[in-house]
């Protein structure tokens, strides 16, 4: 027999109350841990998402929207940029890279990014490295497509498979047929099958959701729409049919030359200011916009953390109530233990340890729920915002949250422990004489 055995007996004797209390504490721990982890993982993911891009040019309504659409693929940009504008920007400075991008089509909810080979070969989705092929090769001809790791996993497309892109943010074939205007706005380009020629390794960035193809294919798709709308007898379109007005893009990823080992370019501010003078485009510094986004949501962020802290305190109060309410029923037990030689301090420490153990159990269950919660939240963010985050809870957060819970539970146990300490022995032993 040990003190721990006594405590476990005590907890088991009130099993329902113990389970409810542990669940209450666990939920508060899980909430706190999920918030802290997702906050850090979200920050990391946002920072990582812009890759090695210094500047992002678009025709969106604001730099922040430009970054959300152009880097995180939240929505297809509404306003196009003419190819001539791209040529003008590319030629005005010896960029490290100037990669045109075009967003607007999709496959089963995965955005299709039309671009050049430079996107796969020069742009780094993560400062740690370039795109790597898991299988196949990069696209070399029109209507070839390379799948991001997440897109390949979710679509289950293999090398050599063919697919049709959907005009718009996505939707099933069944959902588009016979729906009038909606079908026109969000229709499938069935005239032009794409062939999967490569599948990328995961990068842990939003780019994993992409289907990456060449610009010319996309221009042909939309030129065909234009031509078919004017003349329904037209059955096919080639690059020879492209007009200058068909050659549209929605974004330009720019990187300035840097010194080896440095991610920062001395000339960036100057180029940024020069580009901003052009009112037909919006220029964004992705990192700056991400910081701005964090400052906007920062107060909400803190509010959530504060709410989670209040919930944790609520968990502590539930321990206090559970133990305090059990004290009346335990007075006789405590009196008998005192008769058997158990000191007041030992009684106090038994109740306090019981309280801390409830906290520890709650923390353990809560951490488990929290880890699952992080994965679920990451999946939801990926589906809804296109934000690919890697929820790896930091060890120091696990330790801090678990320790805080145990300390809080210990503090919550002080009042019941004091009640136990002060239990009058003689009064609680049934008088016989």
């Amino acid at each position, binding site marked *: *027999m*040990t*003190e721990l*055995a*006594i405590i476990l*007996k005590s907890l*088991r*004797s009130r099993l329902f109350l113990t389970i409810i209390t542990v669940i209450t504490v666990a939920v508060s721990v899980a909430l706190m841990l999920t918030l802290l982890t997702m906050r850090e993982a979200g920050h990391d993911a946002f920072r990582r998402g812009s890759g090695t891009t210094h500047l992002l040019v678009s025709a969106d309504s604001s730099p922040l929207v430009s970054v959300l659409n152009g880097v995180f693929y939240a929505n297809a940009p509404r306003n196009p940029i003419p190819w001539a504008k791209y040529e003008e920007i590319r030629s005005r400075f010896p960029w490290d890279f100037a990669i045109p991008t075009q967003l607007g089509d999709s496959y089963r909810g995965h955005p299709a990014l039309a671009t050049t080979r430079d996107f796969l070969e020069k742009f780094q989705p993560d400062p740690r490295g370039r795109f790597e092929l898991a299988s196949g090769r990069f696209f070399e001809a029109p209507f070839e497509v390379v799948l991001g790791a997440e897109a390949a996993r979710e679509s289950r497309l293999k090398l050599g498979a063919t697919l049709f892109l959907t005009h718009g943010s996505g939707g099933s074939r069944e959902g588009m047929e016979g729906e009038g205007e909606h079908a026109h706005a969000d229709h499938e380009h069935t005239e032009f099958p794409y062939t999967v020629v490569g599948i990328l390794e995961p990068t842990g960035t939003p780019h994993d959701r992409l289907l990456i193809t060449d610009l010319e294919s996309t221009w042909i798709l939309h030129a065909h729409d234009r031509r078919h709308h004017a003349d329904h007898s037209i059955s096919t379109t080639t690059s020879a049919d492209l007009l200058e007005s068909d050659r549209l893009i929605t974004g330009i990823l720019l990187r300035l030359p840097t010194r080896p080992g440095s991610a920062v370019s001395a000339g960036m501010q100057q180029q940024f200011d020069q580009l901003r003078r052009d009112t037909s485009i919006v220029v964004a510094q992705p990192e700056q916009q991400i910081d701005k986004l964090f400052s906007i949501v920062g107060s909400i962020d803190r509010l959530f953390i504060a709410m989670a802290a209040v919930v944790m305190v609520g968990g502590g109060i539930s321990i206090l109530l559970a133990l305090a309410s059990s004290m009346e029923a335990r007075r*006789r*037990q405590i009196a*008998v*233990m*005192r*008769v*058997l*030689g*158990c*000191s*007041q*301090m*030992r009684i106090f420490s038994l109740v306090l340890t019981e309280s801390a153990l409830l906290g520890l159990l709650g923390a353990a269950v809560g951490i488990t729920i929290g880890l699952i919660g992080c994965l679920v939240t990451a999946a939801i963010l990926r589906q809804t915002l296109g934000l690919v985050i890697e929820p790896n809870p930091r060890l120091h957060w696990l330790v801090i949250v678990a320790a805080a819970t145990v300390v809080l539970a210990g503090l919550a146990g002080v009042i019941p422990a004091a009640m136990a300490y002060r239990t009058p*022995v*003689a009064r609680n*032993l*049934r*008088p*016989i*004489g």
Partner: protein
Amino acid sequence: MTTSPSTTPASPRESRDAASAPSALRVAGLRFRYGPGPWIIDLAELSLAPGEQVLLTGRSGSGKSTLLQLIAGLVDPLQGSVEVDGRNVHALSGSARDLFRGQRIGMIFQTFQLLPGFTARENVMLALLFAGRAPREQRERADRLLVELGIERADAAVDELSVGQQQRVAVARAVACNPSLVLADEPTASLDCENAGIAMDLIQESCRRTGAALLCASHDPALAARFTRKVSLT
């Protein structure tokens, strides 16, 4: 109310035992009352030799239970002293007194006061735990005692045991630490005549076997024949 003990003398054998060892219990000038009322306990002197068995009689409300609680150090007297095994119980404070009680004094209650949810073995082991015995020793000692007292189901929860078996577990717990003194507070009050006899046999025999002195408080006149020495609280 002043309580005056009237005693019958100890037998010659008990007197010899008393001469060769310190008293198991020595009470001197003990006075106690709740608030400003009359004295509930006013006991000039009471001694028990080692192994001596004394019946403490008196009507209900005469202070028998209170006297046992004073002796056990659960209640502090207003005047006087209580020595158990040569140690002044009330001079000890806090955890030292609790530990001393756990090691040197065993208590048996009318309703046994076994801890529900614990097995027979665990109830005995608890007494040994609080007396500072190691877990392995606790288990060996508890099992041996329970076998000696005829408890075969040491792993059964006490709630599942019969009243007679619960009584045996309570006795085993009281003598588990080889106490110098066992205090029994109306141990037969909730039993019929036949079971009361069996229970008293058990208690007295266990005390004899372990060498513990026994102070048994009861208002049951049927127990008088079992004790050569009686102390009456009037």
